[in-house]
């Protein structure tokens, strides 16, 4: 049995960032998923969502949930990432000073997602957009 949801994300709209994370969090609580696993899902989703808000024009979050796994796909229309390896380094960020001012853009986003996900695939086409695929096993508590 599986469930699917989709959330739209608007580039630059920091006010509403975090909506998808809150909704997904509530559903995982209803399913009785361990709180440490929920925490990992929410960290991944929130970081990825903020990435879209900070860097892209718009994006879509597709969540596919079954009793064992959550798969999240975040596809954005945006500048894309030229050097993914560099973007994966801790502390690397192309965020504008304004974004950093708001407490975002510390360059921890992608490494943080990678550390919390069980499966993490990032593909990007410069000038077109970036797609993140994140999977987390809902039954294991260990990272």
């Amino acid at each position: 049995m599986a469930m699917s949801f989709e959330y739209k994300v608007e580039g630059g709209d920091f006010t509403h960032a975090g909506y998808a994370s809150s909704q997904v969090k509530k559903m995982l609580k209803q399913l009785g998923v361990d709180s440490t696993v929920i925490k990992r899902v929410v960290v991944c989703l929130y970081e990825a969502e903020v990435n879209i808000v900070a860097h892209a024009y718009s994006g879509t979050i597709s969540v596919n949930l079954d009793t064992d796994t959550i798969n999240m796909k975040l596809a954005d229309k945006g500048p894309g990432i030229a050097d993914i390896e560099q973007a994966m380094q801790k502390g690397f960020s192309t965020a504008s000073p304004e974004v950093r001012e708001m407490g975002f853009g510390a360059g921890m986003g992608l490494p943080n997602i990678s550390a919390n996900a069980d499966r993490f695939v990032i593909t990007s086409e410069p000038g077109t957009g970036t797609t993140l695929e994140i999977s987390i096993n809902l039954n294991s508590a260990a990272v």
Partner: protein
Amino acid sequence: MEKGFFHHALTIREDICTGCSLCMRVCPTGALRIRDGKARLTEDRCVDCGECFRSCPVNAIIIEQDDFSRIFDYKHRVALVPAVLHGQFRHEVSMAEISTVLRSLGFTWVYEVEHGAEVLKPAIEDLMKVRTLPRPLISTYCPAVVRLIQVRFPALIRNLATLRAPLEMAAFYCRKVLRDRGAHNAEIGVFYVTPCAAKIAAVKSPVGEESTPITGVINMDFIYNKINRTLRNKGELARGEEHPYTVDPDTLVWSLTNGEASCVNGRTLAIDGINNVTEFLEQLENDEITGVDYLELRACDEGCAGGVLLSSNRFLVAERLRTKALTLKPVKITPGTEEIPGIEAYSDYLMNKVRITAEIRPRSMYRLSDDRDEAMKMMKRSRRLMCWLPGTDCGLCGAPSCQSLAEDIVRHKADISQCVFIRESNMDKELMDKERSSEIMRRIWGDNNFTKNCNKKGAENESN
């Protein structure tokens, strides 16, 4: 779900409740429903914040307390008094006067709870030095907040600063002093004058099921009335000796908003009001908030000055207490000359007791079923139901929102025909007749709400 996990201090008196549903609408955890014209409590959701008590127009919600005469079962009768009690009286009424009244009621020792915060200050500092603990640490001072975290934010349990409350430290101290002077534990009764329901619930079933040094609770409104009567009747009061163990001005305001946080080093935040706390915890749980070291969270506006058992305006209580703290002259006592050594003399003994060692367990209220497959089915069904429910949250179904009705239905605790919108459309389609619809309405709201009653609030012969 396990029943009776939490002890609750709040009880709904069915004979008084009119089923007006005000409480259902303010409950921050959605723990109340209306059935047969009465408010019903889902116990495992209740965090004893007391919002329902505050909102009830007919005083149908009562807060349990121990029978006052119970204090006389003990040879040594200690009253533990929180500073907010003093904040309820005019500034001219001294703390010593209030102590005198309390002693005249039968207590043998009146001790200010805030002394216990002296022990908490270094204990929090010690805990803050432990680098392996998550940040921010969340104060466990307010029991309603601890319970809110247990039922709604289980991921944040690990952030709880596992320290006992000033109240318990003060109680340990009083017991120790009396024992050192020859009393037996069984002869000592320690009674707490409580400003709220959550504190009662915490005394009766402590966080992590620790043993408690507190014998019983006396509700603050009861004591307030007693003191007020005495002050008004006696004209002049037998002035008691000024209590020599004056509370440190810093800790006197510990229970007010920012009273605790301002005593902690680092980046601290003080948040009051249960809805503000919930909103903040939601963001904290999403990892949206970083760089905060310590959180003081209080369920009531203005902290304990806004406790549900206080009789005076919370802002006045807070202002009076802050003024008192400013004008308080700490009494310097030469060590060794005092009759009873102050709490600082017992700091080693108390520091050994300050940690909560038992585990604080999560009690998620969201979980639909213990079986993941079943929970998934129920979640799907609830989302399907939401397609049909109007989303107006009118409450006529006896649940606080359409979402909560949908969840009640999948938990087999409600029926979709409780929704007035669904019934109306079913009647339009001639799937339901008027009698049936009205019968459902009466089952939710009771027959009384369908008959003329001139005694209700705002009506011709209003009475209580």
